[in-house]
């Protein structure tokens, strides 16, 4: 465990040093990510200002779902999601070999290599939005906060699992940058309160593609709209993570390097 923490510390230091080599690029990237993540909440704001709404959801409640979504991405993207991009390029170029030459688990090395400090910009925009959304709702009690904290861990776990699935696909589906589009298309449903969808769609987004667990379920807990029963999401996230790990390691066997 100490070795793993040392590795993370060294990687964070190194990646920050890399970013500081191009400070303006870093600052601009962070800014663009913040702006990009605030587009959907701004549209929501415009919708409510125009008199429309998501049925059963006030503006601040709807924004809370979107804030949780951006916050979850703000944690998961810097630490886990970068591995999708690095797998994409390293498998295509054959430089994934270099990770296999390191005396650490390959998946761990892949996550380390994909660590991206720029993505912390999402955390900042998520935090601002979260604060704004909280200011307009009844203050949650400690039980709601506890439920939310546990469900937020499940949310991060789901995003980590999704990263593993997308990254794993790239060992077989070499060089396909479309995995990012797939991610954006599928997870965009998670930015809205689940109850606005049909019952069938809600079931799909909860039990088949657990996108609803990324933001809707944790936000509902904070709003006191779900009981302790919603903690089944923890087991569901753990199972998905296990499947993601198995899938990634299975797909790694397809790696054939590149010509020498």
């Amino acid at each position, binding site marked *: 465990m100490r*070795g793993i923490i*040392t*590795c993370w*510390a*060294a*990687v964070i*230091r*190194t990646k920050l*040093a*890399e970013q500081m*080599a*191009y400070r303006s690029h870093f600052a601009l990237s962070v800014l663009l990510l913040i702006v990009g993540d605030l587009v959907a909440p701004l549209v929501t704001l415009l919708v409510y200002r125009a008199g429309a709404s998501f049925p059963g959801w006030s503006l601040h409640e709807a924004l809370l779902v979107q804030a949780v979504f951006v916050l979850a991405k703000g944690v998961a993207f810097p630490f886990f999601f970068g591995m999708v991009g690095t797998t994409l390029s390293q498998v295509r170029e*054959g*430089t994934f*070999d*270099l990770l*296999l*030459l*390191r*005396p*650490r*688990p390959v998946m761990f*090395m892949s996550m380390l290599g994909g660590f991206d400090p720029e993505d912390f910009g999402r955390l900042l925009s998520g935090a601002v939005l979260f604060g704004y959304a909280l200011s307009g709702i009844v203050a949650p009690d400690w039980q709601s906060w506890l439920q939310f904290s546990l469900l937020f861990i499940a949310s991060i776990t789901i995003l980590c699992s999704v990263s593993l699935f997308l990254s794993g696909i790239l060992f077989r589906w070499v060089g396909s940058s479309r995995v990012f589009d797939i991610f954006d298309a599928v997870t965009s449903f998670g930015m809205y309160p689940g109850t606005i969808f049909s019952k069938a769609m809600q079931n799909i987004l909860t039990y088949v593609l657990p996108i609803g667990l990324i933001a809707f379920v944790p936000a509902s807990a904070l709003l006191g709209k779900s009981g302790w029963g919603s903690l089944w999401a923890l087991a569901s996230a753990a199972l998905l993570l296990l499947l993601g790990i198995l899938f990634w390691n299975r797909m790694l066997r397809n790696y*054939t*390097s590149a*010509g*020498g």
Partner: protein
Amino acid sequence: MLRRINRKCGVYTLIDVKNLTRTFMIHERGHTLSEVIRTLVHRPMKEVRAVDDISFTIEQGEMVAFLGPNGAGKSTTLKMLSGVLHPTSGEIKSMGLVPWKQRREYVRKIGAVFGQKSQLLWDIPPSDAFYLNKAIYGVPDKEYKETLDELVELLQVGDVMRKPTRQLSLGERMKCEFIMAMLHRPELVFLDEPTIGLDMIAKENIRSFIRSMNQKKVTFILTTHDLDEVELLAERVMVINHGRIVVDDALSGIRSRLGGKKKVKITTEKTVNEGLPPGLLITERMNLLELELEIDTAILPLKTFISQFNETYGIIDMAIEELPIEAIIKQLYTGESSIS
């Protein structure tokens, strides 16, 4: 012979490879528009045998070169030896471990330098990349400092350690790649074209470093197309072609396979005709009176050649040289029958 000498020195078999085979399935298609469109529906696959049933052993402290034309199977063999790829069949036991099964334990004992795949980080100084490697390999602080100081001094890169990698010359970068590969003090190092693109001075510095590490019983396995490098570094050469080892010998042994072939540069008083006796071949005609010949002394002894040639054409000047290693290797690659 080489292995016998090594055994006397008390070293052991480091790598034992038996019947190693690796096949790949590759997509195959033609270049016409209809063939390209057809591949949208169905892509025919073809099995390629990159490495075909090879066996060999390597002793501790050896310096072995893998030679072969592009696509011969050298890099695939190297990747299996380093644990990056697993074989389709066959066995590898290296330092008592199976590389692809005990990968983490194994790679801790090996290093690798790829001339075309950098392990440094482009935008930040090499010292930062070394620090990252230290954390990944779990090298203790004291050992790290001692090793780094030693390597920096040996390779004379003290003044470039804090410059961004992108600002270093290719030679400086390669030296730093060697430091990356050696920081955890590996027993076995794989070098894949380590001096590609370097100037003569940088090449010599790197070669001298490799020799000094080899004297400390570090085993090196080298793949290269630079035959000078092979002559200067490798005690043993394995020539791989079409996935098979065609020759596994010391360089002197490979030379002797050509029998008594020599290169003769000669200037004569009269123009030399095309119709030459058996054992003689004109390889280049510089002008009417100057030419380069290849002579097989097993067929035409030197003494006879000089006497006959002098009598017929009158020798003004003559230089006899060993056939260059390039010529020998070329014949091995093309599988010419003149090599026994």
